[in-house]
């Protein structure tokens, strides 16, 4: 086998310019794919991070049926005290959970005593919420990174539109479950930067203020947001928790809870899927580049070496060995293209990171592009290129191996 490699490499070096061009083409393809994957992957991961770490959390547990009506923020589908206790009992035993945060979500009217508008509010225990969505404090662009009772964090667009500043008194009026209306005065303690996605324009108040204004006799919550220690274990943990929650039944023997990962709750998941689809098509383009360039060069190689093929066949070289000889040439081209492509691709990614490129996403400005490439991506791309190179060489190699020596020797 070593000798076949030696002959293959020497044959490649025999046509240096052509080999260089083909290898360069593969290299360019690999570089493009690596850079695209790293940038799109980084964009995707960053956006997922933004969405999960600043509002959604990794998972959310609701009362069964809540998510179907989530846009209405239905108070009648809140989890009652008993269910909350059962749920917290389960969550407290899960070592995979970093933190979880109970929330009441509701809509109401917001007034600065001059004008009135709608507002969506999330009522939280601030310390638990900040541990569950650790980027939330960073979204508080003015004011303290805290939220005490009697205070409200307002979304920036609302604050701007209603001309409300820090320290101003505002009123929130809500309709509770019974249909009665209640209001409470709050002090503006901070302005929260709006972000793209569900809950990105919500205001925040303390959960006990919400219970008071909603006239709850016992604590009720709309959801519990959960943050995991390891995001990569989301799917396995989700399955585990789903299993545990499915055992919690109400008096009608129906499940009490429903569990959703961020993917089911955020429309950004579809964008993430689109990025994956685009990446797939870019990989397909790479495959086409490799397939066509290697096939072209190998067809040329076979055509140019017909007499040599005839000679080695006449000497007694078995067809299988002749086939291997050409397949190995294609394999070597693929390996060289993939290797150089990986080196150049990684260098380009490093340069992109050193340039500290920033971009905007919706209301978020100056997000730093941090291109990352994972060893598994490099491995998959390299293996794909090499396999495609071998496949592309097969047809010309097969043709060479099936050549009649007598005809090949006559070839001029």
């Amino acid at each position, binding site marked *: 086998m070593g*000798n076949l490699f030696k002959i293959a490499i020497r*044959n490649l070096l025999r046509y240096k310019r052509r080999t260089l061009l083909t290898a360069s083409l593969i290299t360019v393809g690999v570089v493009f794919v690596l850079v695209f994957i790293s940038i799109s992957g980084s964009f995707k991961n960053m956006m997922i991070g933004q969405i999960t770490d600043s509002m959604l959390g990794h998972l959310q547990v609701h009362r069964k049926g809540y998510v179907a009506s989530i846009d209405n923020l239905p108070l009648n589908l809140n989890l009652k005290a008993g269910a909350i206790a059962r749920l917290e009992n389960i969550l407290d035993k899960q070592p995979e959970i970093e933190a979880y945060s109970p929330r009441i979500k509701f809509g109401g009217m917001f007034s600065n005593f001059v004008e009135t508008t709608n507002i969506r509010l999330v009522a939280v225990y601030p310390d638990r919420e900040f541990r569950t969505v650790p980027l939330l404090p960073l979204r508080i662009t003015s004011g303290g990174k805290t939220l005490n009772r009697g205070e409200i964090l307002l979304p920036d667009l609302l604050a701007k539109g209603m001309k409300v500043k820090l320290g101003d008194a505002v009123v929130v009026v809500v309709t509770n479950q019974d249909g009665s209306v209640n209001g409470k005065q709050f002090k503006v303690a901070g302005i929260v930067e709006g972000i793209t996605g569900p809950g990105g324009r919500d205001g925040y108040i303390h959960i006990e203020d919400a219970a008071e204004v909603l006239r709850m006799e016992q604590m009720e919550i709309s959801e519990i947001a959960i943050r995991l220690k390891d995001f990569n274990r989301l799917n396995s943990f989700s399955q585990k928790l789903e299993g545990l929650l499915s055992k919690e039944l109400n008096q009608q023997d129906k499940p009490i809870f429903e569990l959703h990962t961020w993917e089911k709750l955020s429309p950004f998941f579809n964008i993430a899927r689109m990025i994956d689809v685009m990446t797939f098509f870019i990989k397909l383009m790479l495959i086409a580049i490799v397939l066509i360039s290697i096939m072209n060069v190998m067809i040329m190689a076979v055509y140019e070496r017909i007499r040599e093929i*005839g*000679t080695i066949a006449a000497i*007694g*070289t*078995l067809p299988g060995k002749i086939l291997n000889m050409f397949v190995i040439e294609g394999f070597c081209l693929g390996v060289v293209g993939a290797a150089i492509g990986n080196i150049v691709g990684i260098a380009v990614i490093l340069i992109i990171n050193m340039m500290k490129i920033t971009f905007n996403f919706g209301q978020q400005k100056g997000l730093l592009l941090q291109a990352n490439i994972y060893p598994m991506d490099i491995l998959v791309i390299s293996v794909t290129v090499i396999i495609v190179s071998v496949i592309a060489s097969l047809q010309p190699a097969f043709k060479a191996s099936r050549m009649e020596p007598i005809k090949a020797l006559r070839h001029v």
Partner: protein
Amino acid sequence: MSLIIAENIQKDYKTGEVTVKALKGLSFEIAPASFVSFVGPSGSGKTTLLNLIGCLDKPSDGKLNVADTNVLHLDRKQSALFRGSNIGFIFQDFNLLPVLTVYENIEYPLLMVQSTPASERKKRVTALLEAVGMIDQKDKYPDQISGGQKQRVAVARALVTNPKLVLADEPTANLDHKTAYMVIDLMKKMRDEFKTTFIFSTHDQKIVGEVEIIYMLEDGELKGTEVKGGKRNG
């Protein structure tokens, strides 16, 4: 016991609607360690006959035994194995592999065809390099040596597997007078040393003058056999 037994072999080629009879029922026998030439004008069937003997092609009819093997029934792979074990080829254009050195070209059949162990390969290749006087050129590539040297390398490559038979199609056609005789002498020496049968297809008088048996072909028919020393058949 003859090395080659041909009985009434025929070879037809189809060119469109026309069937060309390249060989018209040839019969002959060639003994081991012979130095034989098929001579005749262009189109007489010399190369076709050599291709049949070399298992590169199959007769349309007749019987052909080479080294005790009925070569008519060999399939593609068996033919390759048979050639690798029993037959060496010397081509008019030398047909050395340009990416291999002189040493590697000679070594090629041992390495890629017969899978001979490294120590044995080295012994045989070195012995042949010395025999053909190319030991000091062993690391050169074919494009770095002369035509005569290339043909000496081709002779060594043909002999390295210790074949029973070497087929040489116009081996001196691309060589000058002096080099041609040098190559012929070399082949004779090899025949004497290794008892290999050499069969030439040629109309080069230099070879014709040196061989021991001459088969004369014309229009695909054997017109006569000349055995040097005054014997004449046919």
